[in-house]
């Protein structure tokens, strides 16, 4: 019985690992193939089934004048927009989440929970609903087709995620911790910065991770709100496509665009399994 259990366990682990890793391996081999090795029947192993070459990768850094697409600039644009918008969203979101968790707000029938829900409701709407208002708004302040404009829009999109995660997190941080800090002589700002915030690092990391993911993968708004001056990575990757689908360079660009998220996942995983709040009050 236990042998069967062990067998099944390992079987599923291996199955799942293959399920997750195989697409990446497939993309990796494809990125080194040429037209012939992709369209002339299935090929698997480099040097055996096909002769690998770097054409798919070279296209990504060659300038358009030389027949490439040059994703370097859009790549850094994406990094810059995602990181800046995430950072600002986390800062603003954490501050508002702390206020929503610790103080009572009331405006008529609107109370704390309603305000929190208002933030989340921004993400319930289909993005297409927001596209025209955003377009008109950015055009009225001359920020269409600019990095700053994209950052503004992304803050609007990412902050609800930060608020939502952090309100939930702060609600789980016992109020006694703040009260103790006040009794020990901190003012409310110091209590937040010196005591509550260091205890909330796991929450900040989760919120940061979600902001980075949602910012990084956005295609829709990047596509609608930019034209020629500024381009973000997802838009550029789609632009790679042509009448003959260049599977090799598409695969290569897919890998480089996933890379930052994989790095983030590795860093975050270490922090998530370490410091959590469970021991603060018990």
């Amino acid at each position, binding site marked *: 019985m236990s042998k069967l259990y062990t067998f099944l366990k390992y079987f599923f682990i291996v199955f799942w690992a293959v399920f997750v890793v195989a697409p990446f391996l497939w993309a990796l081999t494809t990125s080194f193939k040429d037209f012939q090795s992709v369209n002339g029947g299935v090929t698997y192993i480099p040097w055996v089934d096909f002769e690998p070459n770097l054409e798919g990768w070279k296209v990504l850094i060659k300038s358009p004048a030389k027949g490439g697409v040059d994703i370097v600039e859009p790549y850094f644009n994406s990094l810059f927009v995602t990181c800046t918008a995430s950072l600002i969203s986390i800062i603003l979101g954490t501050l508002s989440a702390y206020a929503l968790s610790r103080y009572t707000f009331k405006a008529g029938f609107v109370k704390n929970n309603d305000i929190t829900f208002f933030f989340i409701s921004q993400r319930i709407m289909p993005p297409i609903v927001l596209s025209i208002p955003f377009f008109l708004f950015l055009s009225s302040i001359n920020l269409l087709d600019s990095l700053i404009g994209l950052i503004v829009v992304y803050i609007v999109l990412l902050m609800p995620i930060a608020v939502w995660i952090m309100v939930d997190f702060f609600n789980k941080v*016992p109020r*006694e*911790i703040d*009260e*103790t*800090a*006040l*009794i*020990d*002589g*901190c*003012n409310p700002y*110091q209590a937040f910065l010196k*005591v509550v915030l*260091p*205890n909330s*690092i796991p929450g900040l990391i989760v919120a940061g991770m979600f902001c980075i993911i949602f910012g990084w993968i956005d295609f829709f708004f990047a596509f609608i709100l930019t034209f020629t001056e500024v381009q973000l990575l997802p838009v550029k990757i789609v632009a790679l496509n042509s009448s003959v689908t260049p599977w090799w360079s598409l695969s290569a660009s897919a890998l480089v665009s996933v890379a930052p998220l994989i790095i983030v996942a590795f860093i975050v995983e270490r922090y998530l399994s370490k*410091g959590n*709040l469970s*021991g*603060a*009050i*018990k």
Partner: protein
Amino acid sequence: MAKIDLSNISHSYNPNDPNPVYALNPFSMTWENGNRYAILGPSGCGKTTMLNIVSGLVRPSAGKILFDDNDVTDLKTEERNIAQVFQFPVIYNTMTVFENLAFPLKCRDFSKAKIDERVNSVAETLNLKSFLNSPARKLTADQKQLISLGRGLVREDVAAVLMDEPLTVIDPDLKFRLRRNLKEINEQYKTTLVYVTHDQNEAMTFADNIIVMSEGEVVQTGSPKELFERPNTTFVGYFIGSPAMNLFDSEATSENAVKINNTIIKTNTNLSNLKTKNIKLGIRSEFIKIAKDQNENLVDVNVQKVEDFGNYKLITAMMDKFEIKSKVNRETEISGEKIKLHIPAEKCCIYENNKLI
């Protein structure tokens, strides 16, 4: 260290309601510098509200709080220089034990030398010295509670250390040691300690003054002996002592005697000014003994059961329709079902409308 005056304090959590519910009814009280107080009462009687008012976490709906005759009612918690220990240990997870203990001093800009000296001295008292450099979150629950306590004691000039059932999470043996520790700390540093509990034994062994509360009301303040022997109300008689005080409905028959069923019991209380017929006689089971050669204040009872608690025996008997309990030495032999018990006149408390006369 300070003398704390609570003057006409009352608190309601819904003061704007037309019919506000008071968590704390108006009361006045003075806590003298350097004494040990226990606030005792069942859950939900307003004990924690009272503490939070003193520490400034709650602003009272009415009344004033004075520290050494200075009005602090409107001062914020951080400006009051008070220490509070909660029921569950609250520690700063991301800091070491040393940093936890030093935190209140750092917040108040003490010099590094002073901080080192105080933290080491408090850690010594609380047996935390060997953990000073470990992360606080790695410690056990009771060590964490010691840290909470230590943060309260590390400031020498703290007005009072307020403790809200601080020993709940700690095992009985350590509880006993910690209570003794607290007493020593109180004697050594002359810190005013206020201890909230619903456990009467804890209150009796710890404090020299006990404040008994019930339903938002301070019902009696006094030494453990006063509370035990002369409870102000039937509630205190019932709440303090194990078993609870024996209480019998009775009627006054003369200036100093009452009748329970058909037995006349003499008391040392003057009963000539009674206004109502709602009279109760209260007596501790510790004072009721099996009659030997006394010839008055005797009652005939039917023994229902005798429980041996090791260091004493508890007799539960029926005196007609009233149950009566008596605590006797464990060597006492109880012969037969029908026995005579003696109720000493000087230990009888008479309650009119549940208040002591």
